[in-house]
């Protein structure tokens, strides 16, 4: 089973559509990322519509993690990465001069692969973002509860809000991280393999949560689990060797993939 050793062209588009304010929430145009001389991502152009769940799939090393990290300027925490191209949030290029990444991240949240709860109580974890904004106590309480409900954790922790977050199980911690990210009401939520370290039951819970959330906000989920992409997402994008090979509605991509590379990956020929 030999790997294809040549990437075929990136997603072809006749002309990049102009970014309008009623359509896409998040879009990239010609996005590229380089580390020293090595190109990690090349010419990614993709749109993310509002209220959708897009799965990003691809084999290890294809650049999908780097891709989502460009979407909220987290690439800046790794020295040596240079970003070219544009990322548009509601029409505004977040890499433009004068845009502070701190603000970008308040609008585009991120959940990581392993649960990263802070060494504080459950309540304080979720309230973290709100405390940054110095919200009054009653607002904080309300929003914390709301976030926990949206992430499906409220019932389980409502009597344990003051307990250390580390006392929760792995799956609960990850949902706590989602609640924490939601508390600041982002429009976009990025998840970098967020269920990879969870058991199937927790994974299912998280997927159910994400499915509900996708009716309200834009969710982008990086996953190495093709089956998860198939069952949980509305749209799927396939990355390979730093390029976007194909993107489209999930059903279409899985049943009638346009690119041979896509087909080979999702049918398990390699990966």
């Amino acid at each position: 089973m030999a790997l294809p050793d040549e990437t075929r062209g990136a997603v072809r588009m006749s002309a990049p559509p102009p970014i309008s304010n009623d359509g896409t929430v998040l879009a990239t145009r010609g996005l590229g990322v380089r580390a020293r001389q090595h190109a990690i991502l090349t010419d990614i152009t993709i749109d993310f519509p509002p209220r959708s769940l897009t799965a990003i799939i691809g084999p290890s090393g294809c650049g999908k993690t780097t891709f989502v990290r460009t979407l909220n300027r987290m690439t800046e925490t790794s020295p040596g990465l240079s970003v070219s191209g544009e990322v548009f949030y509601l029409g505004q290029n977040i890499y433009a001069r004068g845009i502070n990444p701190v603000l970008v991240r308040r609008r585009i949240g991120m959940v990581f692969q392993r649960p990263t709860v802070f060494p504080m109580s459950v309540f304080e974890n979720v309230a973290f973002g709100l405390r940054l904004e110095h919200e009054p106590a009653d607002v904080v309480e309300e929003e914390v509860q709301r976030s926990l409900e949206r992430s499906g954790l409220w019932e389980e922790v409502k009597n344990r809000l003051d307990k250390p977050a580390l006392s929760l199980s792995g799956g609960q911690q990850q949902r706590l991280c989602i609640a924490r990210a939601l508390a600041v009401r982002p429009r976009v939520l990025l998840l970098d393999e967020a269920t990879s370290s969870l058991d199937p039951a927790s994974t299912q819970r998280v997927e159910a949560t994400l499915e509900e959330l996708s009716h309200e906000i834009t969710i982008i989920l990086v996953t190495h689990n093709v089956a998860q992409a198939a069952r949980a997402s509305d749209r799927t994008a396939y990355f390979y060797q730093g390029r976007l090979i194909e993107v489209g509605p999930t059903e279409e991509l899985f049943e009638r993939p346009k690119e041979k590379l896509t087909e080979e990956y999702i049918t398990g020929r390699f990966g």
Partner: protein
Amino acid sequence: MAPVGLADLAQARRRFARWNLGFDRYIGYLLPLLFIVAIVPILDMVYWLGAEALPTMTWATLTTGGPTQPLGLFPAIAGTVWIMVIALALAVTLGLFGGIATAEFLSERSAAWVRMTANTLAGMPAIIIGMMGFVVFVLYFGWGLVLIAGAVTTAFFMTPYVFRAADLAFSSVPRTIREAALGAGARPIDYILRVARPIVTPQILNGIFLALGLGIGETATVIVTVQPSALAPTGPFSYASYLTYVIYAEYTSPLPADVTLAFQAAFLLLMIVIVINIIVRIVAWRYQTRLAGLFV
């Protein structure tokens, strides 16, 4: 049409968030300035040491000294060398054996206890160890205020650092190597001397140098156990001067020449410490590069 995103991002910036962003930036400039607060006094000290010590320091300063030539450091240097050689030999012996025994032969629980004792010993003030040295070696053993009393006392002070370095070094040998040695039928002594030695040597050397630096600069262990002499020592049971004593004795002297001598001794000490530090750094760097592929 103005991007909605810009307005949205602007809305994310609430009343004080602007202050927060600014604060973050300014504190990023401010905090590094604290480095200056920390470093400037020390630089001043080094400058003064050099300024006072160097103008009159000649080769003669280092090679002469004695009752007839009071302004020489030779007796002190000789004394320091005598003391440190004995102290180092003893400390390395005790520390190596102890550290290796802890890393290799003790159960994890016992090792934890032993490590605690080593850490506790390292935390004891030098003057307390000095007091022990006075009581035990000078008085109880009856040696008197001789240099070997100071040497052994200093050795006790230095031991925990060598101990910890040996312990850490041997504990850090990768499991795979250890198991391979075991599987090949090696006895402990073979493993230590043949297999582990090249791996642990740099780290242990570092610990030894560290202990040496601490020992040379430590005053409290020797000042209460050794009677100073104006001559270079003739044997382990003679009185001796030593570099830190020169400083201790002369710092209040009304004679400028004596004070200069103190500065010269201090300068010499500082140079020794810097050289040792550089050696440690080089050894660590070569260790890092040599063993990069080992810990896969």
